[in-house]
């Protein structure tokens, strides 16, 4: 039965998180933007305490045993949307497993989930991250060159990872881990890809660089070099089968399963920025006496009214796609197409909404007195990371056409 009623646990959580966004995030938003690489410990420690106190759980998408229908991904999407309304860069500093835990969830065995994810339930804040991109392998993930070679009870990893979101906070500032994608057979392409857990402080693993970015500056984007980095054999995610060279079960497919889970969540973050923008635009217009006459036909509306309604159409329709994608994940329905659709739409929506907001409000929005110009900068990453808009179009296209990656390159 089609229903748009927000479940009450989510509604309650949103109220609490909205307070956090308003009081803990917005006041430091500008400072963190202007002090790139400063670590927002106040926020991190507060969130660790708050999440433990309210048992809101970590950002790792673990399913708690609960009565009634599964809501895990839906709760996460709302949480991420609300925190990103506060500040999308700060949200990425939220303690919890992040994309690292998501990869463990999607590809790990129950034993591995227990072993690697337990740390996020402790007293001190810990972050997790995922290391996929390499200097020569962006969208083309199957061409990664980082190698994993078995040596008795160990794997030895060599290679360079870039654009690791929260790499510094996961591997240097806290005792987290990175899920590193490496190949056990460089000639095998995607079939050789495997995920490995590399813990903080592992010898041979070094964070070598922090990027300076257009936006989301509160979040670190790290380069990680692996030089004869030895990790236990059991840190390869998945059953013992995956260590064998022939199987492709949890190789590239594991990466894709991870993305099916995380793409709607990244989209949710985009939606937080988009909602913040639309709300502020409407508020500023209202101060100037401009209200939107929703009942009028389009040809009777002013240009400003049309702009605002168009922004709201983009915002709401994208958000509903996100909700549908996470709802499907909670229903354990295959959601690969919907996950990528939500990402295509959310990436587009937040980019256009922030662009148009800055245009519409002119000098007011272009000035750094307000946060609009920052949101414009923050927004763009959502059309790039976790699969660019183009890669997600490719995923959607293959799904709707029933084409393999060979048929539609």
């Amino acid at each position: 039965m089609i229903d748009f009623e927000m479940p009450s646990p989510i509604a309650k959580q949103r109220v609490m998180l909205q307070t956090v966004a308003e009081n803990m995030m917005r006041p430091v938003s500008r400072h963190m933007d202007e002090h790139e690489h400063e670590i927002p410990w106040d926020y991190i420690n507060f969130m660790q305490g708050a999440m433990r106190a309210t048992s809101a759980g970590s950002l790792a998408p673990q399913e708690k045993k609960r009565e009634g229908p599964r809501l895990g991904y839906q709760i996460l999407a709302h949480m991420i949307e609300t925190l990103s309304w506060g500040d999308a860069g700060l949200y990425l500093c939220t303690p919890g497993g992040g994309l690292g835990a998501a990869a463990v969830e999607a590809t790990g065995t129950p034993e591995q989930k227990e072993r690697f994810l337990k740390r996020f339930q402790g007293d001190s804040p810990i972050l997790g991250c995922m290391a996929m991109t390499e200097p020569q392998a962006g969208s083309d993930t199957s061409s990664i060159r980082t190698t994993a070679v078995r040596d008795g009870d160990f794997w030895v990893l060599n290679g360079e990872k870039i654009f690791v979101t929260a790499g510094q906070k996961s591997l240097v500032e806290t005792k987290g881990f990175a899920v590193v994608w490496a190949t056990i057979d460089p000639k095998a392409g995607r079939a050789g890809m495997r995920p490995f857990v590399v813990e903080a402080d592992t010898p041979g693993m070094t964070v070598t660089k922090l990027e300076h970015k257009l936006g989301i500056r509160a979040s670190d984007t790290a380069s990680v070099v692996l030089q004869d980095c030895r990790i236990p054999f059991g840190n390869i995610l998945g059953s013992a089968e995956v260590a064998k060279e022939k199987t492709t079960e949890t190789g590239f497919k594991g990466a894709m399963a991870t993305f099916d889970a995380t793409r709607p969540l990244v989209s949710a973050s985009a939606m937080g920025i988009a909602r913040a923008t639309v709300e502020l635009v409407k508020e500023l217009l209202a101060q100037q006496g401009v209200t939107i006459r929703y009942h009028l036909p389009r040809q009777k509306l002013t240009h400003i009214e049309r702009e605002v309604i168009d922004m709201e159409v983009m915002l709401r329709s994208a958000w509903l796609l996100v909700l549908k994608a996470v709802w499907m994940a909670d229903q354990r329905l295959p959601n690969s197409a919907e996950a990528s659709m939500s990402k295509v739409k959310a990436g587009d929506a937040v980019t256009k909404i922030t662009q148009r907001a800055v245009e519409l409000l002119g000098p007011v929005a272009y000035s750094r007195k307000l946060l609009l110009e920052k949101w414009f900068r923050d927004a763009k990453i959502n059309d790039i990371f976790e699969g660019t808009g183009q890669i997600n179009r490719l995923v959607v296209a293959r799904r709707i056409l029933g084409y393999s990656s060979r048929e539609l390159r």
Partner: protein
Amino acid sequence: MYSFEPSEEQRMLIDAIHKFAAKDLREAAHEADESGAFPEALIGKGWELGVVQASIPESLGGFGEHSAVTGVLAGEELAWGDLAGAMHILAPGLLAFPVLTAGTDEQKQKLLPPLLEGAYRAATAAWVEPFFDFDPSELRTTARKEGDSYVIDGHKCFVPLADRAEHLLVFAALDGRTQAFVVPRTTAGVTVLEREGNLGLHALPTFEVKFENCKLPATARLGGEAGFDPLVLLNTTRVALAGMAVGVSRAAYEYALDYAKDRVQFGVPIAQKQAVAFMLAEMATEIDATRMLVWEAAWTLDKGLDATHAAALAKTGADDLTMMVTDRAVQILGGHGYIREHPVELWMRNGRGFPMFTGLAMV
């Protein structure tokens, strides 16, 4: 609790409509567009699907309960078959739904059972006026109180089936506020003008209608002496049209997708080219996103909440969607999309009308 899945019952209705839409409507659509009308038997068969009847309680001649969500699901599926056919089949709803929503008990009892029980009987509404700045909440057609009567004067267009409908629900400004009046077609002062020729909807007979000193009893006013809130009906028609717009868009998208997989150029199906594949991916994404907006707006109506905001978003999104998707479908078919052998040009012409179809669908 969120859910994005129609109920079992709704699913069955959609399946039944889909069969009719795919077989009967689609097969007759081209000929109907050329000749100007669907065969009456086909309209009768569509009526028997019971889309309107299922949304009206048994006590008033129907066999279900009102649900805007079910209505937009049905509307999408029928419009997927053919928009003109869908509007023709659902035209009795143009009178039935406003009466159900805003009518007095007497109006419901008098008008609904004869309309709903038995075979198809045309009914219609006259809302649109032939001016570029037409505004449903600021009509030029006027109604004035004269003793115990109302007198209507004005000029309407886009009135479907005005030549045969027993009753027209005529929207007019009463003291500056949009109200509606149930007008028997044979009332003195009602002139149904020549059939219109439009860009699209060729298969749906629509007419300009003039009202000159058209005198009606006080009981003709929808909602009686108290009248009704016109915003509710405006939201309702917007949501209904938005659902149909998604249906037209889906038709064009699916057709273009199938074509692109078939059509070989440069040695491969053109769907294997990213330039085409990405267009299709965006069409699919926007259709799904807009459908969610429509469902939410319909759900808001069903909840009895103010749906003005949701309906505006759904309508705006759906109007834009239809143009985007049908234009791309024509583009993907290229020259073959421009000729009338393929239906995509028809969907593009029909789709262009949604922004001005106010009142041509109700839910």
